[in-house]
Protein backbone atom coordinates (compact mmCIF):
# COMPACT_ATOMS: atom_id res chain seq x y z
CA UNK A 1 0.00 0.00 0.00
CA UNK A 2 1.63 3.25 -1.16
CA UNK A 3 2.17 5.98 1.42
CA UNK A 4 2.02 8.61 -1.34
CA UNK A 5 -0.05 7.92 -4.42
CA UNK A 6 -0.28 10.40 -7.29
CA UNK A 7 -2.90 9.84 -9.97
CA UNK A 8 -3.31 11.64 -13.32
CA UNK A 9 -1.94 14.92 -11.96
CA UNK A 10 -2.24 17.91 -14.27
CA UNK A 11 -0.81 21.32 -13.36
CA UNK A 12 -1.01 24.40 -15.54
CA UNK A 13 0.38 27.93 -15.12
CA UNK A 14 -1.30 30.54 -17.34
CA UNK A 15 -2.48 27.82 -19.73
CA UNK A 16 1.01 26.26 -19.96
CA UNK A 17 0.96 22.61 -18.91
CA UNK A 18 3.79 21.97 -16.44
CA UNK A 19 2.74 18.50 -15.26
CA UNK A 20 0.80 16.34 -17.69
CA UNK A 21 -0.97 13.30 -16.27
CA UNK A 22 1.73 12.36 -13.77
CA UNK A 23 1.28 9.07 -11.86
CA UNK A 24 3.55 7.80 -9.09
CA UNK A 25 3.40 5.50 -6.06
CA UNK A 26 5.88 5.81 -3.18
CA UNK A 27 6.03 2.81 -0.88
CA UNK A 28 6.60 3.07 2.89
CA UNK A 29 10.24 2.93 3.90
CA UNK A 30 11.72 3.58 0.47
CA UNK A 31 13.86 6.45 -0.76
CA UNK A 32 12.33 7.76 -3.95
CA UNK A 33 14.47 10.20 -5.92
CA UNK A 34 12.81 12.60 -8.32
CA UNK A 35 15.34 13.24 -11.03
CA UNK A 36 15.09 15.72 -13.85
CA UNK A 37 16.66 18.71 -15.49
CA UNK A 38 15.93 22.35 -14.77
CA UNK A 39 12.35 23.23 -15.73
CA UNK A 40 11.29 19.57 -15.91
CA UNK A 41 8.57 20.06 -13.25
CA UNK A 42 10.33 18.56 -10.21
CA UNK A 43 9.75 21.51 -7.92
CA UNK A 44 6.17 21.90 -9.16
CA UNK A 45 5.47 18.25 -8.35
CA UNK A 46 7.01 18.72 -4.92
CA UNK A 47 4.82 21.75 -4.22
CA UNK A 48 1.80 19.68 -5.23
CA UNK A 49 2.79 16.83 -2.92
CA UNK A 50 3.11 19.37 -0.10
CA UNK A 51 -0.29 20.87 -1.02
CA UNK A 52 1.27 24.31 -1.43
CA UNK A 53 -0.57 24.61 -4.76
CA UNK A 54 -3.75 23.10 -6.15
CA UNK A 55 -3.64 21.04 -9.36
CA UNK A 56 -5.91 21.50 -12.34
CA UNK A 57 -6.82 17.81 -12.24
CA UNK A 58 -5.83 14.56 -10.57
CA UNK A 59 -5.35 13.44 -7.00
CA UNK A 60 -2.54 13.02 -4.47
CA UNK A 61 -3.18 10.58 -1.65
CA UNK A 62 -0.87 10.97 1.34
CA UNK A 63 -1.62 8.25 3.90
CA UNK A 64 -5.04 7.79 2.23
CA UNK A 65 -5.98 11.48 2.49
CA UNK A 66 -6.53 13.24 -0.82
CA UNK A 67 -4.63 16.45 -0.12
CA UNK A 68 -5.95 18.11 -3.29
CA UNK A 69 -9.49 18.11 -1.89
CA UNK A 70 -9.26 17.79 1.91
CA UNK A 71 -10.08 20.48 4.46
CA UNK A 72 -7.43 22.67 6.11
CA UNK A 73 -7.87 20.72 9.37
CA UNK A 74 -7.20 17.40 7.61
CA UNK A 75 -4.26 18.95 5.80
CA UNK A 76 -2.73 20.01 9.12
CA UNK A 77 -3.00 16.38 10.26
CA UNK A 78 -1.19 15.24 7.11
CA UNK A 79 1.50 17.90 7.58
CA UNK A 80 2.33 16.52 11.03
CA UNK A 81 3.42 13.29 9.41
CA UNK A 82 5.65 15.05 6.85
CA UNK A 83 9.01 16.68 7.51
CA UNK A 84 10.31 19.01 4.82
CA UNK A 85 13.77 20.41 4.23
CA UNK A 86 13.54 23.09 1.58
CA UNK A 87 16.17 23.88 -1.03
CA UNK A 88 17.05 27.17 0.68
CA UNK A 89 16.79 25.47 4.11
CA UNK A 90 14.09 28.07 5.00
CA UNK A 91 15.26 28.36 8.58
CA UNK A 92 13.76 31.28 10.49
CA UNK A 93 16.55 33.82 10.75
CA UNK A 94 15.16 35.46 13.88
CA UNK A 95 15.43 32.16 15.78
CA UNK A 96 18.52 30.20 16.78
CA UNK A 97 19.09 26.72 15.34
CA UNK A 98 17.77 25.20 18.57
CA UNK A 99 14.66 27.37 18.49
CA UNK A 100 14.08 26.46 14.85
CA UNK A 101 14.11 22.76 15.71
CA UNK A 102 12.07 23.30 18.88
CA UNK A 103 9.37 25.33 17.14
CA UNK A 104 7.26 22.34 16.04
CA UNK A 105 7.57 20.67 19.43
CA UNK A 106 6.75 23.85 21.32
CA UNK A 107 3.66 24.61 19.26
CA UNK A 108 2.26 21.18 18.42
CA UNK A 109 2.96 19.18 21.57
CA UNK A 110 2.38 19.60 25.29
CA UNK A 111 5.87 18.41 26.21
CA UNK A 112 7.71 20.01 29.10
CA UNK A 113 10.47 22.48 28.10
CA UNK A 114 13.20 20.20 29.50
CA UNK A 115 11.95 17.28 27.37
CA UNK A 116 11.80 19.56 24.33
CA UNK A 117 15.40 20.66 24.99
CA UNK A 118 16.46 17.02 25.16
CA UNK A 119 14.67 16.09 21.92
CA UNK A 120 16.16 19.12 20.17
CA UNK A 121 19.64 18.12 21.31
CA UNK A 122 19.05 14.57 20.02
CA UNK A 123 17.82 15.78 16.62
CA UNK A 124 20.79 18.11 16.29
CA UNK A 125 23.13 15.30 17.32
CA UNK A 126 21.67 13.07 14.60
CA UNK A 127 22.63 15.63 11.96
CA UNK A 128 25.95 16.45 13.64
CA UNK A 129 25.05 19.92 14.86
CA UNK A 130 24.72 19.35 18.60
CA UNK A 131 27.38 21.97 19.35
CA UNK A 132 25.90 24.61 17.07
CA UNK A 133 22.38 24.93 18.49
CA UNK A 134 22.93 28.40 19.93
CA UNK A 135 24.00 29.86 16.57
CA UNK A 136 21.62 31.68 14.26
CA UNK A 137 21.09 30.45 10.67
CA UNK A 138 23.08 33.35 9.18
CA UNK A 139 26.12 32.13 11.16
CA UNK A 140 26.02 28.66 9.55
CA UNK A 141 27.64 27.41 6.35
CA UNK A 142 25.48 26.15 3.48
CA UNK A 143 25.90 22.50 4.44
CA UNK A 144 25.17 23.19 8.12
CA UNK A 145 22.00 25.07 7.18
CA UNK A 146 20.80 22.08 5.16
CA UNK A 147 21.53 19.73 8.07
CA UNK A 148 19.75 22.08 10.47
CA UNK A 149 16.77 22.04 8.10
CA UNK A 150 16.81 18.22 8.20
CA UNK A 151 16.92 18.34 12.02
CA UNK A 152 13.89 20.62 12.03
CA UNK A 153 12.13 18.34 9.56
CA UNK A 154 12.75 15.40 11.89
CA UNK A 155 11.53 17.19 15.02
CA UNK A 156 8.08 15.53 15.14
CA UNK A 157 9.39 12.11 14.02
CA UNK A 158 7.63 12.24 10.64
CA UNK A 159 6.81 9.16 8.58
CA UNK A 160 7.73 10.96 5.38
CA UNK A 161 10.80 13.12 4.85
CA UNK A 162 10.83 15.43 1.83
CA UNK A 163 14.15 16.91 0.76
CA UNK A 164 14.30 19.50 -2.00
CA UNK A 165 17.71 19.62 -3.71
CA UNK A 166 19.63 18.69 -0.53
CA UNK A 167 23.03 18.81 -2.20
CA UNK A 168 22.49 21.85 -4.44
CA UNK A 169 25.22 24.44 -4.01
CA UNK A 170 27.35 22.25 -1.75
CA UNK A 171 30.86 20.98 -2.31
CA UNK A 172 31.15 17.23 -3.10
CA UNK A 173 32.31 16.29 0.39
CA UNK A 174 29.45 18.03 2.18
CA UNK A 175 27.01 16.70 -0.45
CA UNK A 176 28.29 13.18 0.19
CA UNK A 177 27.90 13.71 3.95
CA UNK A 178 24.27 14.66 3.40
CA UNK A 179 23.74 11.54 1.27
CA UNK A 180 25.11 9.42 4.11
CA UNK A 181 22.83 11.23 6.55
CA UNK A 182 19.78 10.41 4.40
CA UNK A 183 20.79 6.72 4.24
CA UNK A 184 21.39 6.73 8.00
CA UNK A 185 17.92 8.16 8.64
CA UNK A 186 16.35 5.52 6.43
CA UNK A 187 18.16 2.67 8.12
CA UNK A 188 17.69 3.98 11.66
CA UNK A 189 14.13 5.32 11.55
CA UNK A 190 12.70 3.36 8.57
CA UNK A 191 11.61 6.71 7.21
CA UNK A 192 10.09 7.17 3.76
CA UNK A 193 12.06 9.80 1.88
CA UNK A 194 11.26 11.75 -1.25
CA UNK A 195 14.36 13.48 -2.53
CA UNK A 196 14.29 15.96 -5.39
CA UNK A 197 17.61 16.45 -7.11
CA UNK A 198 19.42 16.74 -10.40
CA UNK A 199 22.71 15.46 -8.98
CA UNK A 200 23.26 12.08 -10.61
CA UNK A 201 25.88 10.79 -8.18
CA UNK A 202 23.75 11.65 -5.19
CA UNK A 203 20.62 10.13 -6.75
CA UNK A 204 22.31 6.81 -7.53
CA UNK A 205 23.91 6.68 -4.09
CA UNK A 206 20.75 7.06 -2.01
CA UNK A 207 17.82 5.93 -4.15
CA UNK A 208 15.79 2.75 -3.79
CA UNK A 209 13.85 3.87 -6.83
CA UNK A 210 14.25 6.79 -9.23
CA UNK A 211 11.55 8.64 -11.12
CA UNK A 212 12.89 10.56 -14.10
CA UNK A 213 10.83 13.61 -15.00
CA UNK A 214 11.08 15.55 -18.26
CA UNK A 215 8.73 18.18 -19.69
CA UNK A 216 6.03 17.38 -17.15
CA UNK A 217 5.96 13.60 -17.69
CA UNK A 218 7.73 10.64 -16.16
CA UNK A 219 10.05 9.09 -18.73
CA UNK A 220 11.01 6.21 -16.45
CA UNK A 221 10.30 5.01 -12.93
CA UNK A 222 12.25 2.13 -11.46
CA UNK A 223 15.23 0.88 -9.52
CA UNK A 224 18.71 2.20 -10.22
CA UNK A 225 19.46 -0.72 -12.53
CA UNK A 226 16.19 -0.30 -14.40
CA UNK A 227 16.92 3.39 -14.93
CA UNK A 228 20.45 2.62 -16.15
CA UNK A 229 19.01 0.07 -18.58
CA UNK A 230 16.26 2.38 -19.83
CA UNK A 231 16.74 3.06 -23.53
CA UNK A 232 14.73 6.28 -23.69
CA UNK A 233 17.03 8.76 -25.50
CA UNK A 234 16.34 11.57 -23.02
CA UNK A 235 17.11 9.30 -20.04
CA UNK A 236 20.33 8.13 -21.69
CA UNK A 237 21.25 11.72 -22.52
CA UNK A 238 20.69 12.69 -18.87
CA UNK A 239 22.62 9.69 -17.52
CA UNK A 240 25.53 10.22 -19.89
CA UNK A 241 25.53 14.00 -19.41
CA UNK A 242 25.20 14.72 -23.15
CA UNK A 243 24.41 18.41 -23.70
CA UNK A 244 21.69 19.63 -26.03
CA UNK A 245 23.60 21.16 -28.96
CA UNK A 246 22.19 24.66 -29.41
CA UNK A 247 23.99 25.09 -32.75
CA UNK A 248 21.85 22.29 -34.21
CA UNK A 249 18.58 23.98 -33.27
CA UNK A 250 16.93 25.07 -36.58
CA UNK A 251 16.37 28.70 -35.62
CA UNK A 252 19.93 29.14 -34.35
CA UNK A 253 21.41 27.33 -37.37
CA UNK A 254 19.45 29.54 -39.79
CA UNK A 255 20.61 32.68 -37.97
CA UNK A 256 24.27 31.57 -38.04
CA UNK A 257 24.03 30.73 -41.74
CA UNK A 258 22.61 34.17 -42.52
CA UNK A 259 25.32 35.82 -40.39
CA UNK A 260 28.14 33.92 -42.16
CA UNK A 261 26.71 34.78 -45.59
CA UNK A 262 26.45 38.48 -44.75
CA UNK A 263 30.03 38.49 -43.48
CA UNK A 264 31.16 36.82 -46.72
CA UNK A 265 29.26 39.39 -48.76
CA UNK A 266 30.92 42.24 -46.83
CA UNK A 267 34.34 40.77 -47.58
Amino acid sequence: MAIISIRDLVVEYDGRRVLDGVELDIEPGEIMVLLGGSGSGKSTLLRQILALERPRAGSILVKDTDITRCSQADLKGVYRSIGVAFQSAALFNSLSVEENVALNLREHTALAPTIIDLIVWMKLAVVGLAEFGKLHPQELSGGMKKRAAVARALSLDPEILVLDEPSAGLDPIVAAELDELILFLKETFQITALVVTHEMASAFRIADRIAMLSEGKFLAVGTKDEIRACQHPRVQQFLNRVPDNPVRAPAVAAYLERYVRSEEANL
Partner: protein
Amino acid sequence: MANVLEIAGRETLAELDYVGRLNIQLWATLRAMRRSLPLIGNRHRWHAAVQQMLEIGVDALPMVALLAMCSGFILAMQGASELRRFGALHYVIDLVAISFTRELGPLITAIAVCGRSGSAFAAEIGTMKVTEEIDALKVMAFDPVEFVLAPKYLAALVAVPCLSIVSNLFGILAGGLFMFFSTHLALLLYFKYVMVSIALRDVVAGLIKSLAFATIVAHVGCLEGFRVRGGPDAVGRSTTMAVVRSTFMVIVADAVFTAIFYFVGQM
Protein backbone atom coordinates in the same frame (compact mmCIF):
# COMPACT_ATOMS: atom_id res chain seq x y z
CA MET B 1 -11.15 55.44 -26.93
CA ALA B 2 -11.97 51.76 -26.56
CA ASN B 3 -8.39 51.19 -25.51
CA VAL B 4 -8.62 53.86 -22.78
CA LEU B 5 -11.84 52.29 -21.47
CA GLU B 6 -10.23 48.86 -21.59
CA ILE B 7 -7.25 50.06 -19.55
CA ALA B 8 -9.52 51.91 -17.10
CA GLY B 9 -11.69 48.81 -16.70
CA ARG B 10 -8.70 46.55 -16.17
CA GLU B 11 -7.16 48.89 -13.60
CA THR B 12 -10.48 49.24 -11.78
CA LEU B 13 -10.87 45.47 -11.60
CA ALA B 14 -7.28 45.11 -10.36
CA GLU B 15 -7.90 47.69 -7.61
CA LEU B 16 -11.18 46.01 -6.62
CA ASP B 17 -9.34 42.71 -6.49
CA TYR B 18 -6.74 44.32 -4.23
CA VAL B 19 -9.37 45.74 -1.88
CA GLY B 20 -11.08 42.33 -1.84
CA ARG B 21 -7.83 40.63 -0.87
CA LEU B 22 -7.29 43.22 1.87
CA ASN B 23 -10.75 42.47 3.27
CA ILE B 24 -10.20 38.71 3.18
CA GLN B 25 -6.85 39.16 4.92
CA LEU B 26 -8.39 41.49 7.52
CA TRP B 27 -11.13 38.96 8.30
CA ALA B 28 -8.61 36.10 8.55
CA THR B 29 -6.44 38.20 10.88
CA LEU B 30 -9.35 39.14 13.13
CA ARG B 31 -10.20 35.44 13.46
CA ALA B 32 -6.56 34.55 14.21
CA MET B 33 -5.88 37.46 16.54
CA ARG B 34 -7.40 35.80 19.60
CA ARG B 35 -4.27 33.60 19.69
CA SER B 36 -2.07 36.72 19.97
CA LEU B 37 -3.86 38.12 23.00
CA PRO B 38 -2.31 37.91 26.47
CA LEU B 39 -3.61 35.28 28.95
CA ILE B 40 -6.13 33.63 26.61
CA GLY B 41 -3.83 33.31 23.58
CA ASN B 42 -0.51 31.68 22.76
CA ARG B 43 2.28 33.26 24.83
CA HIS B 44 4.76 33.04 21.92
CA ARG B 45 2.42 35.10 19.71
CA TRP B 46 1.93 37.59 22.54
CA HIS B 47 5.71 37.89 22.95
CA ALA B 48 5.99 38.46 19.20
CA ALA B 49 3.28 41.14 19.44
CA VAL B 50 5.11 42.89 22.31
CA GLN B 51 8.33 42.79 20.31
CA GLN B 52 6.49 44.36 17.38
CA MET B 53 5.00 47.02 19.68
CA LEU B 54 8.52 48.02 20.67
CA GLU B 55 9.61 48.18 17.02
CA ILE B 56 6.54 50.03 15.74
CA GLY B 57 6.05 52.23 18.77
CA VAL B 58 9.11 52.82 20.94
CA ASP B 59 11.64 52.84 18.10
CA ALA B 60 9.50 55.35 16.16
CA LEU B 61 9.09 57.75 19.11
CA PRO B 62 12.02 60.12 18.30
CA MET B 63 11.04 60.35 14.64
CA VAL B 64 7.35 60.97 15.35
CA ALA B 65 8.18 63.51 18.06
CA LEU B 66 10.54 65.42 15.77
CA LEU B 67 8.06 65.39 12.88
CA ALA B 68 5.30 66.63 15.20
CA MET B 69 7.53 69.39 16.62
CA CYS B 70 8.45 70.64 13.15
CA SER B 71 4.83 70.52 11.97
CA GLY B 72 3.68 72.28 15.14
CA PHE B 73 6.20 75.10 14.59
CA ILE B 74 5.25 75.43 10.92
CA LEU B 75 1.53 75.52 11.70
CA ALA B 76 1.98 78.03 14.51
CA MET B 77 4.25 80.32 12.45
CA GLN B 78 2.07 80.23 9.33
CA GLY B 79 -1.06 80.77 11.39
CA ALA B 80 0.52 83.61 13.40
CA SER B 81 1.72 85.48 10.29
CA GLU B 82 -1.90 85.84 9.11
CA LEU B 83 -3.74 86.07 12.45
CA ARG B 84 -1.35 88.78 13.72
CA ARG B 85 -2.68 91.16 11.02
CA PHE B 86 -6.15 90.90 12.59
CA GLY B 87 -4.87 91.11 16.14
CA ALA B 88 -5.98 87.53 16.76
CA LEU B 89 -2.66 85.94 17.62
CA HIS B 90 -4.22 84.07 20.55
CA TYR B 91 -6.20 81.97 18.05
CA VAL B 92 -2.92 80.25 17.16
CA ILE B 93 -3.47 78.20 20.33
CA ASP B 94 -6.83 76.91 19.08
CA LEU B 95 -5.46 76.38 15.59
CA VAL B 96 -2.55 74.23 16.76
CA ALA B 97 -4.44 72.34 19.47
CA ILE B 98 -7.51 71.45 17.40
CA SER B 99 -5.54 70.76 14.19
CA PHE B 100 -3.24 68.34 15.98
CA THR B 101 -5.78 66.43 18.04
CA ARG B 102 -8.28 66.05 15.22
CA GLU B 103 -6.03 65.80 12.20
CA LEU B 104 -2.30 66.29 12.13
CA GLY B 105 -1.27 64.11 15.06
CA PRO B 106 -2.81 60.87 13.72
CA LEU B 107 -1.91 61.73 10.12
CA ILE B 108 1.77 62.52 10.78
CA THR B 109 2.03 59.36 12.88
CA ALA B 110 0.41 57.22 10.19
CA ILE B 111 2.72 58.55 7.48
CA ALA B 112 5.77 57.97 9.68
CA VAL B 113 4.60 54.42 10.47
CA CYS B 114 3.90 53.80 6.76
CA GLY B 115 7.50 54.68 5.96
CA ARG B 116 9.07 52.82 8.86
CA SER B 117 6.92 49.82 9.68
CA GLY B 118 4.73 49.33 6.57
CA SER B 119 7.82 48.99 4.41
CA ALA B 120 9.48 46.75 7.03
CA PHE B 121 6.45 44.43 7.10
CA ALA B 122 6.49 44.13 3.30
CA ALA B 123 10.25 43.53 3.21
CA GLU B 124 10.17 40.98 6.03
CA ILE B 125 7.27 38.94 4.68
CA GLY B 126 8.48 39.31 1.09
CA THR B 127 11.88 37.94 2.08
CA MET B 128 10.19 35.10 3.95
CA LYS B 129 8.30 34.29 0.74
CA VAL B 130 11.46 34.34 -1.38
CA THR B 131 13.41 32.17 1.08
CA GLU B 132 10.50 29.69 1.34
CA GLU B 133 9.94 30.46 5.05
CA ILE B 134 6.21 31.03 4.46
CA ASP B 135 6.00 27.65 2.71
CA ALA B 136 7.94 26.14 5.62
CA LEU B 137 5.38 27.57 8.06
CA LYS B 138 2.54 26.04 6.06
CA VAL B 139 4.07 22.57 5.92
CA MET B 140 4.81 22.78 9.65
CA ALA B 141 1.01 23.17 10.07
CA PHE B 142 1.19 26.83 11.08
CA ASP B 143 -1.14 29.47 9.73
CA PRO B 144 1.09 32.27 8.34
CA VAL B 145 -1.64 34.82 9.08
CA GLU B 146 -1.71 33.80 12.74
CA PHE B 147 2.05 33.38 12.98
CA VAL B 148 3.25 36.47 11.10
CA LEU B 149 0.43 38.94 10.55
CA ALA B 150 -1.73 38.82 13.67
CA PRO B 151 1.03 39.89 16.11
CA LYS B 152 1.96 42.76 13.80
CA TYR B 153 -1.63 43.93 13.51
CA LEU B 154 -2.23 43.72 17.26
CA ALA B 155 0.99 45.66 17.85
CA ALA B 156 -0.01 48.33 15.32
CA LEU B 157 -3.45 48.70 16.95
CA VAL B 158 -1.75 49.44 20.28
CA ALA B 159 1.29 51.39 19.10
CA VAL B 160 -0.19 53.74 16.49
CA PRO B 161 -2.79 55.39 18.80
CA CYS B 162 -0.08 55.76 21.48
CA LEU B 163 2.22 57.38 18.94
CA SER B 164 -0.64 59.66 17.86
CA ILE B 165 -1.03 60.89 21.44
CA VAL B 166 2.72 61.55 21.59
CA SER B 167 2.51 63.35 18.27
CA ASN B 168 -0.36 65.50 19.58
CA LEU B 169 1.63 66.40 22.70
CA PHE B 170 4.80 67.36 20.82
CA GLY B 171 2.91 69.29 18.13
CA ILE B 172 1.03 71.27 20.76
CA LEU B 173 4.26 71.75 22.72
CA ALA B 174 5.88 73.24 19.61
CA GLY B 175 2.98 75.72 19.36
CA GLY B 176 3.56 76.58 23.03
CA LEU B 177 7.27 77.21 22.46
CA PHE B 178 6.46 79.46 19.51
CA MET B 179 3.98 81.43 21.61
CA PHE B 180 6.51 81.69 24.43
CA PHE B 181 9.23 83.09 22.18
CA SER B 182 6.95 85.37 20.17
CA THR B 183 4.57 86.66 22.86
CA HIS B 184 6.22 85.52 26.13
CA LEU B 185 3.09 83.51 26.96
CA ALA B 186 3.98 81.15 29.80
CA LEU B 187 3.85 77.47 28.88
CA LEU B 188 1.58 76.61 31.79
CA LEU B 189 -0.93 79.25 30.74
CA TYR B 190 -0.62 78.08 27.13
CA PHE B 191 -1.56 74.53 28.15
CA LYS B 192 -4.47 75.89 30.20
CA TYR B 193 -5.81 77.58 27.02
CA VAL B 194 -5.19 74.38 25.09
CA MET B 195 -7.31 72.38 27.54
CA VAL B 196 -10.11 74.89 27.10
CA SER B 197 -9.95 74.83 23.29
CA ILE B 198 -9.97 71.05 22.70
CA ALA B 199 -12.88 68.80 23.49
CA LEU B 200 -12.80 65.12 24.39
CA ARG B 201 -14.54 64.19 21.15
CA ASP B 202 -11.64 65.77 19.18
CA VAL B 203 -9.20 63.44 20.91
CA VAL B 204 -11.49 60.44 20.48
CA ALA B 205 -12.00 61.24 16.78
CA GLY B 206 -8.23 61.37 16.35
CA LEU B 207 -7.79 58.03 18.10
CA ILE B 208 -10.52 56.39 15.98
CA LYS B 209 -8.67 57.63 12.90
CA SER B 210 -5.38 56.28 14.18
CA LEU B 211 -6.92 52.83 14.68
CA ALA B 212 -8.10 52.88 11.06
CA PHE B 213 -4.66 54.07 9.91
CA ALA B 214 -2.99 51.26 11.89
CA THR B 215 -5.25 48.76 10.13
CA ILE B 216 -4.36 50.18 6.72
CA VAL B 217 -0.60 50.31 7.34
CA ALA B 218 -0.36 46.81 8.83
CA HIS B 219 -2.54 45.12 6.25
CA VAL B 220 -1.23 46.87 3.14
CA GLY B 221 2.37 46.23 4.24
CA CYS B 222 1.71 42.55 4.97
CA LEU B 223 -0.40 42.00 1.82
CA GLU B 224 2.35 43.47 -0.34
CA GLY B 225 4.77 41.06 1.34
CA PHE B 226 2.50 38.06 0.79
CA ARG B 227 2.07 39.04 -2.89
CA VAL B 228 5.82 38.81 -3.61
CA ARG B 229 6.61 36.44 -6.47
CA GLY B 230 10.13 35.81 -7.74
CA GLY B 231 13.42 37.02 -6.33
CA PRO B 232 14.88 39.83 -4.24
CA ASP B 233 13.97 42.50 -6.82
CA ALA B 234 10.30 41.68 -6.17
CA VAL B 235 10.88 42.36 -2.47
CA GLY B 236 12.17 45.85 -3.34
CA ARG B 237 9.11 46.53 -5.51
CA SER B 238 6.73 45.29 -2.82
CA THR B 239 8.38 47.56 -0.24
CA THR B 240 7.92 50.59 -2.47
CA MET B 241 4.33 49.61 -3.25
CA ALA B 242 3.59 49.14 0.45
CA VAL B 243 4.65 52.72 1.23
CA VAL B 244 2.92 54.24 -1.81
CA ARG B 245 -0.36 52.37 -1.39
CA SER B 246 -0.61 52.71 2.37
CA THR B 247 0.21 56.45 2.30
CA PHE B 248 -2.42 56.97 -0.40
CA MET B 249 -5.02 54.91 1.46
CA VAL B 250 -4.29 56.65 4.77
CA ILE B 251 -4.91 60.06 3.18
CA VAL B 252 -8.12 58.86 1.47
CA ALA B 253 -9.31 57.31 4.74
CA ASP B 254 -8.49 60.56 6.55
CA ALA B 255 -10.60 62.52 4.06
CA VAL B 256 -13.51 60.11 4.53
CA PHE B 257 -13.29 60.21 8.33
CA THR B 258 -12.99 64.01 8.37
CA ALA B 259 -16.08 64.28 6.15
CA ILE B 260 -18.01 61.89 8.42
CA PHE B 261 -17.01 63.74 11.61
CA TYR B 262 -17.79 67.07 9.94
CA PHE B 263 -21.33 66.05 8.96
CA VAL B 264 -21.94 64.27 12.28
CA GLY B 265 -20.78 67.46 14.05
CA GLN B 266 -23.22 69.55 11.99
CA MET B 267 -26.17 67.42 13.08
